[in-house]
C-alpha cells in the first residue's frame, strides 16, 4: 500500500508544482490546494498504513491505527483551509483591482 500511496503523492506534488509554475491566478491557487492534499496524504502514509482498527477505543481491538498523525493532519487541514480561503479572497481582490489574472502582467517594474 505504501508504495502506491507514495507514488500517488509524487503525482500530486508534480501536478501541483506544475500548476504553481503557470501564469494564471486560479491555477496557482489550485496548485496550492493540491499541494496541501499531497502533504496530508503523505503524512498519513508515512505514519504507517498498517492494519488495525480506527483509533476509537470503544472498538477494543488488538491494535489501532496511529492516532497522532491523524490529529496532526486534521490540524493541518483546518489551517490550510483558513489560509486557502484568505488566498482566494486575495486573488479575487487582486483581479478586481488590476483587472487581470495573468501573472505576467502582474510583474510590476523594478522600481515601481
Amino acid at each position, binding site marked *: *500500500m*505504501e*508504495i*502506491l500511496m*507514495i507514488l*500517488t*503523492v*509524487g*503525482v*500530486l*506534488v*508534480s*501536478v501541483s*508544482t506544475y*500548476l*504553481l*509554475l*503557470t*501564469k*494564471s*491566478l*486560479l491555477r*496557482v*491557487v*489550485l496548485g496550492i*490546494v*493540491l499541494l496541501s*492534499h499531497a502533504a496530508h496524504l*503523505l503524512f498519513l*502514509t*508515512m505514519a*504507517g498504513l498498517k*492494519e488495525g482498527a*480506527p*483509533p*476509537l*477505543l470503544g472498538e477494543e481491538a488488538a491494535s*489501532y*491505527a496511529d*492516532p*497522532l*498523525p*491523524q*490529529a496532526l493532519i*486534521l*490540524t493541518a*487541514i*483546518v*489551517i490550510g*483551509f*483558513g*489560509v486557502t*480561503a*484568505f488566498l482566494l479572497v486575495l486573488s*479575487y*481582490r487582486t483581479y*478586481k483591482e488590476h483587472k487581470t489574472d495573468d*501573472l505576467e502582467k*502582474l510583474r510590476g517594474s*523594478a522600481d515601481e
Partner: protein
Amino acid sequence: MSTLHLLVLAPFIMAIFVPFFYKGFRRIHTGWFVLALPLLLFIYLLRFIPIGEPLQVVKETMDWVPSLGIGFNIYLDGLSLLFALLITGIGTLVVLYSIFYIANKKDEPLNNFYVYLLMFMGAMLGVVLSDNLIVIYVFWELTSLASSLLIAYWFHKEKSRYGAQKSMLITVTGGFAMLAGFCLLYIMTGTFSIQGIISFFAESGAIFNEALFLPAMILILLGAFTKSAQFPFHIWLPDAMEAPTPVSAYLHSATMVKAGIYLVARFTPVFGGTPEWFWIITSFGLLTLIWGSISAIRQVDLKAILAFSTISQLGLIMALLGLGSASFIDNVAEVAIIAAIFHLINHATFKGSLFMVVGIVDHETGTRDIRKLGGLMAIMPITFTISIIGIASMAGLPPFNGFLSKEMFFTGVLEATTLNIFNVQTLGFIFPIVAWIASVFTFAYCMIMFFKTFTGKYQPEKLEKKAHEAPIGLLISPIVLASLVVIFGLFPNMLSYTIIEPAMQSVLPYVSDPYINIYHWHGFNAELFMTIGVVLFGTVVFLNLKRWQETTFFLHERDPLNRFYDGGLEGLVAGSQRVTNLQLTGLLRDYFAYMMVFMILLLGWTFFRYDAVAFNFVDVSEISPYLWIITLALIAATISVPFIQHRVTAIIVVGVIGFLIALLFVVFRAPDLALTQLLVETVMVVLFLLCFYHLPELRKESFKARFKMTNLIISVGMGAIVTLIAFSAHAARHGLSFEPISQYFVENSVPLAGGYNMVNVILVDFRGLDTMLEVLVLGVAALGIVALIKLKMKEGQDI
C-alpha cells in the same frame, strides 16, 4: 581609568559640550572654548619628554571586553609620545587658526566642525596611545569617520560629498583588511597586545602558524597604505582638499595621514627583518614619492600641489621605514629610521605652515589658482616671509630643517645600497636614482608655488577680492610653525635625545644607546652633490615648465588612476542592477522555478552524497481492490487538472480530488479525518466558485514549448524528489525500531483523559494548544478577509 585614559577620552567628552557652547554663546566663536583642550593636553604631555635620563614607558590598563581579548590599555613610549605631541600641539595651532579662518556667520554650523575635529583628535590619540590592536582599530575607524565628516563639512557642495565618500570607502576598505590582519596576528600569538606580540616573535623558539604570517603582514600594510595615501590608494587625498583648510593642515598633512606611518613604525619590530616587509614598503614608498612629486607639477590649485606634495613626502618617510627595517640584520640601515622620524617632525612643521599660508592666500584673495595669482609679495609681506621659510625647507635648502632631513634621506638611501641582504646588491641602485629624480621634481614644484604666487605680476582683475595682508590672528599659527622650522634647522640636536632617540627605541627595540648627531656640514660628500644636482635640475625643470605641460600626461590635473575608481563604482552599481533584475523579475513563476530547481539540486546532491536512497518493498501493507480504484481515479483526476480550460470544471475536479482523498482516509481507518476533509472540501469548492465566478475563463496558455517543457521537467523533478525521500524514509523507518509516542495516547486516553476517541482526545487535551492556535488561525483569516473586502485604500494615504 588613569589620567592617560582620560586624555584620550577628553576630546570626546568635550565634543559633547560643544553644541551647548555653540547654542549658548553665539557671539563668541566656539573655537575659543575648544582651544583650551588641546593646549592643556599638549602641556600635560610635555612633562613626559625625557631630559637627561631615558624615557619612562607608561602603561595603564582598563578592561573593556576581556572575553574577546579587548582591553583599553595605554602604552606611552617614545613613538607614541612623539605622535601625541604632534596631535595635540598642531591641534592647538589649527584650532587657533580656525577661529579666524571660519567666520562666525549665522549659517555656519561651527558646532559640527568642532565636534568632528574633537572626535578626530580623541580618536587619533587613541590610535597612538593604545596597546591593544582592536582598540587601535576602533579608533582608526573613528578617524576615518571624522575625516570624512570634516571633508563634507560643506555638504551642499557636490565635490565635498564626493571627496568624503571616496576617502571613507578607501580608508575603511583598508581598515577592514587591517582588522583581518590583526585577527590573524591574534591567532598566531594568542594576544592582541602589541607589546605581547613583539615579545612573542622575539622569542626564538616560538611556535606559530607560519602560513598566516605573510597574509597578516599584507593585510596590515593595506590598512597603513590606504590611510597614508600610498600609491595606488593616494587618490583620495587630493579630493580631500575640499575640506576647510584648517582640516587639511591638521588631518591631511600632519596627523591622520601619518597614522599609516605610525602603524608601519609600530610593527617594524614584529615584521621587520623579513625581505617582504623591506621590499613592499620600500618600493611602494619610493613609487609614491616619485608619483606624487611628478603629479604635483601638473596642478594649478595651490592646495592640490600641497596634497600631492604630502603624498610624495609620505612616500619618502615610508620608504625610509622600509629601508630601515633592514637594521635588524645590518645596523648600517639605522640612519634610515632616524631620518624617517626626523622628517616626520619636520614635515609636520613646514607642511602645516604651508597649508596655513595657502589658506591665508585663499582667504584674502578668494582663489588658489596659480594662473590668477602673482605678485603677492608686496601686498602680504608677512605671509610671504613665512612661505619662503616653509617652501625652502620643503625644497631641502639650508639652513632649514628640511635640508637636514633631506640630506639624511639621501644618506639613508645611499647606505641602503650597501646592504648585502635581500637581493639589494642587484636592485638597490634604483633607490638613490628614484630618490634623486623625485627630489628634482620636488624642488620644481616648490619653485612653482613660490614664484607663481608671490613674484610675478599682480593680477587684481582676476581676483574676487581685494587682496590684503591677513589679520594677525590668522598669522600666529603659521608663524609658530615657521619658527619651529628655523629652530629645528639651527638646533636640530635639541630633538636628538629627547624625541628622536626614544622614538627610535620603539621602532628598533634592540638598539641601545644609539649615537645621534645631526648637523649641517658633512663635507663634500655624495649627499651634497646630490642636493646641488637637485637644485640645478629642478630649476631647469621649472624654467621649461611650459614644455612639460604640453605633453598629454601633464595636461590634466586629475590623477589618471581616478578613472579606475570612478569607473569601478559605476560598474558596481550597473552590475548589481543587472544581477538583481535577473533574479527579482517580478514573475512568480520565475521565483518558483529558481526555488524548485535549487531544492531539487540540493536534496538530490544530499541523497547522492550520502547514498541515502533506499527502498523497502517488504514491509508494506496489503492493498484492497477498492483502494486501487480510488487511487487510480485520484491519479487520473490529478493529471487532468492542468489540461482543463473551463474554470468551473477545474474547480470541481479539484473538489473531486478532495473527496477521493476523504475516501482514502476512510480506507485508512481515519474517520474523523475523513469527516473533516469532506466538510472542508465542500466549503472550499463553494468558496472557489464564489470567488472565481467573476473571473474570466482560463485561457489556453499559449507559451513557448520551451517554457512548458521547463515547467514539466521541474515539476517532474519535484515529484520525483518527494517520492524518493518518502521511500527512503519509509525504508529507514522499518530499519529502526522506535516506538512512536502515540502509544502513550493509546494507553492513557481513557484513564487519564476520559475519552474513547483518541484523535479527539489528542486534539482537545493532549495537544490542546495546537487546536487553540489553529482556531486562532481561522479567526485571523476571517478577520483578514473582512479587512480585505472592506478596506480599499489608495496608495500613499499614510506612511
